[in-house]
């Protein structure tokens, strides 16, 4: 417990979290500080490319673990299952209708790659490794949640058929393609390729992450400011409870797969995190009646900071304890 607090404390005072806090505070105080959209997109491309490449190079280095396929499969299953849990919780805890509940459930079944990136930075700082293919697991968990959520939203008698073009759009979503593509490039070019690109994708990485989190803080703060009145206490509770529920399922999955401690922690992080890029766009297309402000504010304004500040150190500590790591 003391350990978790110490880790949470040192995590709390890292440049990464403080940058997020700065952005959040600036937006809540109505400062006009803002990161241009193109710069934010460029940073997210950089981060996806770097994390994907590093994962691929690590797999190339360590050899393809027999667990790779199993882990992918488990990730897909988890992403299918999480929305069902989230939907049940939302319908039980809040007054939301099925459409809104399904839209939010899709966000929580999918993953947030920045949370993954931030967790990888905390793990690295503590000298903990994780399986390189966790990046591929992350990619595999982006889309299945959308399928479950659409099934939840449309299964009633008034259920509409989901338009065919949507599936291709979801699977070929830019962030999935970039993550998987960079993973493959890392896998093919291996440690030599990584060495080549290290001054670009490793050295400045943490600094870029700081600026990106500054922007995330700004966006989250603006969202929270515009969402006054939308977030009921029950919704707030869901935003904290759901990542814990997700992390528990992630923990069980990680342990069942026999991942190393860092890998278990990452599986928890993935299950606990909520999408704020790919899923929102898909929901606008498929469930336009859902109020996008609710899901985005929950995922970016509540769950993301919770995971960033408390969740990640907590999940790491639990993963350590449960795997018997020193």
């Amino acid at each position, binding site marked *: 417990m003391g350990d978790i607090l110490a880790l949470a404390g040192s995590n709390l005072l890292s440049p990464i979290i403080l940058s997020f806090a700065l952005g959040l505070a600036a937006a809540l105080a109505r400062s006009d500080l803002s990161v241009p959209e193109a710069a*934010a997109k460029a940073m997210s491309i950089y981060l996806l490319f770097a994390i994907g490449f590093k994962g691929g190079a690590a797999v190339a280095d360590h050899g393809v673990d027999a667990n790779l396929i199993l882990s992918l499969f488990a990730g897909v299953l988890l992403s299918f299952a999480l929305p069902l849990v989230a939907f049940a919780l939302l319908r039980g805890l809040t007054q939301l209708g099925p459409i809104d509940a399904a839209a939010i459930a899709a966000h929580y079944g999918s993953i947030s790659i920045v949370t993954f990136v931030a967790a990888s930075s905390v793990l690295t700082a503590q000298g903990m490794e994780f399986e390189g293919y966790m990046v591929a697991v992350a990619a595999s968990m982006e889309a299945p949640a959308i399928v479950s959520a659409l099934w939840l939203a449309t299964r009633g008698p008034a259920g509409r058929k989901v338009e065919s073009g949507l599936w291709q759009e979801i699977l070929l979503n830019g962030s999935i393609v970039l993550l998987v593509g960079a993973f493959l490039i890392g896998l093919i070019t291996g440690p030599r390729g990584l060495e080549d690109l290290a001054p670009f994708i490793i050295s400045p990485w943490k600094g870029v992450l700081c600026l990106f989190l500054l922007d995330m803080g700004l966006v989250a703060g603006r969202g929270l400011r515009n969402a006054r009145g939308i977030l009921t206490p029950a919704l707030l509770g869901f935003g904290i409870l759901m990542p814990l529920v997700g992390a528990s399922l992630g923990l069980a999955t990680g342990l069942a797969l026999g991942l190393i401690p860092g890998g278990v922690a990452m599986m928890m992080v993935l299950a606990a995190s909520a999408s704020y890029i790919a899923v929102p*766009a898909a929901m606008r297309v498929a469930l336009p009646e859902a109020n996008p402000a609710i899901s985005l504010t929950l995922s970016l304004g509540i769950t993301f900071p919770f995971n960033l500040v408390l969740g990640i150190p907590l999940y790491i500590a639990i993963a350590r304890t449960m795997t018997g790591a020193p």
Partner: protein
Amino acid sequence: MQTHKAKRVEIIIEAPMERRLTDALLGAGVTGFTTLPVMGGSGRSGQWTREGQVGRAGMLAVVCLIRPERLDGLLEAAFAVVERHIGVVSVTDCDVLRAERF
């Protein structure tokens, strides 16, 4: 200068719906349109801004100049796409140069 009567249709639509709208327009034989970026706005679903956004969020404006007699086809195609979605559609009378282009 020689000008010709036409209609200027302006469709403000959610960014994730862009391809569906342009596909519908092309499907209805409307091959001329121009897409303009939008920075932010306000409507019944609240205020928003594109600043610092990473995803395909926000709205877009699609402007379409068209012969008056083809307006209805266009509106029907556009309406089928925007029907369930937020956004607005407006039509203005205008005069165009080089009518052979429309």
